């Protein structure tokens, strides 16, 4: 039909039976990557990754040709060492960036739909609440993984490419699994927490501030309470510390945070995620009824 004809034509195509949440993910990512500030934040993330690429490259080059005493000395500098600690540290540092990026990308994701009354439009389509929540959550998970698991795994691959051999492979084959698990541990509570806050508050600004205050207050409490009760295990109530504790175990690092078994920390992180999911689902259900 020529575009200048103002008439209505019946659509005779067959609708696809697919995952509606994937449509949401694609749309959200399209909107996010169309936002300049979001792209700038991703560029900031690249700076840290570039430093790690440099570190691994230098270390592996030195490992291959370690004849010169100056290079040998460089290899022994702790900061330039490449082992499981490197990949763990990378994720730890990236976690703050994940928090900022998730806050930026997710704090308006649901409350803006409420504000703009889009919820009733979306739910008048063949879309379930689960599709909606999954669509939003998976978008943030993908963004989070883009900053953590994906580059960190690529760093492991780079390390294996620059220092090929059975020994490197034996030392690093398990690291990608740890990276994936630890990344999920960082990104999941972050994404679900931001989305729950976005669902509970009326503006993205309030949602962002609320999440920031909760994390800040929680960390402060996690530092102060163990001192007050003279029991380091109380640090578990700090979500960042609990996540860190899980990370230490996943990367076989010596315990620095608190002596409590890592299972409790994992359980705590899981409970936080479950609570966020529940808050999110019940708010969306209420909105659907009231829309």
């Amino acid at each position, binding site marked *: *039909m020529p*575009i*200048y*004809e*103002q*008439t*209505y*034509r*019946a*659509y005779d*195509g067959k*609708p*696809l*039976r*697919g995952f*509606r949440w994937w*449509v*949401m993910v*694609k*749309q959200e990512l*399209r*909107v996010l990557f*169309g*936002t300049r500030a979001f792209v700038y934040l991703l560029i900031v993330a690249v700076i840290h990754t570039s430093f790690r690429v440099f570190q691994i490259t230098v270390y592996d080059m030195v490992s291959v040709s370690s004849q010169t005493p100056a290079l040998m000395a460089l290899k022994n500098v702790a900061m330039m060492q490449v082992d499981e600690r490197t990949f763990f540290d990378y994720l730890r540092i990236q976690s703050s960036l994940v928090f900022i990026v998730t806050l930026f990308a997710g704090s308006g994701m649901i409350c*803006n739909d409420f504000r*703009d*009354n*889009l919820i*009733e*439009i*979306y*739910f*008048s*389509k*063949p*879309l*379930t609440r689960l599709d909606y929540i999954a669509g939003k959550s998976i978008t943030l998970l993908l963004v989070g993984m883009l900053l953590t698991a994906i580059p960190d795994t690529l760093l492991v691959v780079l390390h294996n490419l620059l220092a090929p051999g059975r020994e490197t492979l034996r030392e690093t084959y398990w690291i990608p699994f740890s990276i994936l698990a630890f990344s999920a541990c960082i990104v999941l509570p972050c994404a679900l927490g931001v989305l729950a806050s976005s669902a509970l508050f009326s503006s993205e600004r309030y949602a962002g501030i609320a999440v920031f205050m909760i994390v800040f207050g929680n960390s402060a409490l996690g530092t102060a309470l163990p001192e007050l009760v003279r029991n380091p295990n109380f640090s578990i109530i700090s979500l960042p510390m609990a996540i860190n504790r899980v990370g230490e175990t996943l990367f076989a690092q010596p315990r620095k945070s608190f002596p409590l078994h890592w299972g409790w920390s994992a359980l705590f992180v899981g409970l936080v995620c479950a609570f966020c999911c529940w808050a999110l689902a019940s708010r969306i259900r209420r909105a*659907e*009824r009231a*829309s």
Partner: protein
Amino acid sequence: MAIVELNNVEVSYGAIKALRGVTCTVEGGAVGLLGPNGAGKSTLLRTLLGFIRADAGEASLFGYRLPAEALEARQRLGYMPERDAVARKVSAVSFLTYCGCLFGMQRSDAMERAHEVLNYVGMGDSRYRKMQTYSTGMCQRIKFAQALVHDPKLLLLDEPTNGLDPEGRLEMLELIKELVTKRGVTVLLSSHLLPDVEHVCDHVLVIHQGRIVREGSIGELTTARENLFEIRVREHQEAYRNALETAGCVLQTLPNGNLLVEKPARLEPRVFFELARAQNTHVRHFVAVRHRLEEVFMQAIGRH
């Protein structure tokens, strides 16, 4: 098979009963949903969308039970909500393409369809602008377009002419009418504006305090009044007036110059012609005055 079928549907919000045993069937065409604020119109639409589970009774769309098979039913319906709904950060084309994809359309199909529908609702080049820059009227058109993007068989329209200027309003009503008459789309139109309903619909459902208090075709509901007529004679109007008054009729002159005549029940309508002949004039216009939809509505909700 009926498109919409409600059988003794009851919905309540806590202690408040929003729908009390609503039973109705919509076979097709355009049906107006009338009722004062808080009558239960929006609850009825939300129940049809599957947002709300009925406490009692059965509801179905296209034979699909609600809310259990709501997704199947929603595949065939388009909904235009009353409140402004815009995705501020994207253009109308992008938003409609997204809506099409949510219905399971291929992205290329959805994009093509988005352009067609935006063209149909009269969105020109502004379709490429971000929606936050749109006027109320444009947002209204976008809401209508998103309801049409997947070619629905049933349209649920909640106050579709809100915020439109007179020209835009008429244009919107004509588009809806065209969909009903030429494309066979069934429309359920909820509106406070009775002229809008009269313009588009052939049937009405009057809902009040959660009950359907009146239903039927507009033709049936707006029946001719027994003793009220609008008359115009060619000449000697004054003499004719006097003759009618002498015969016991009550007269009123309308702004267009015609006479609104209420005759006593004992007189037959042919008296008007006999009196005209006696006054040496001719009747040029003679129409039995019908009940207006507004009167029917007010009567139905007990305000008359």
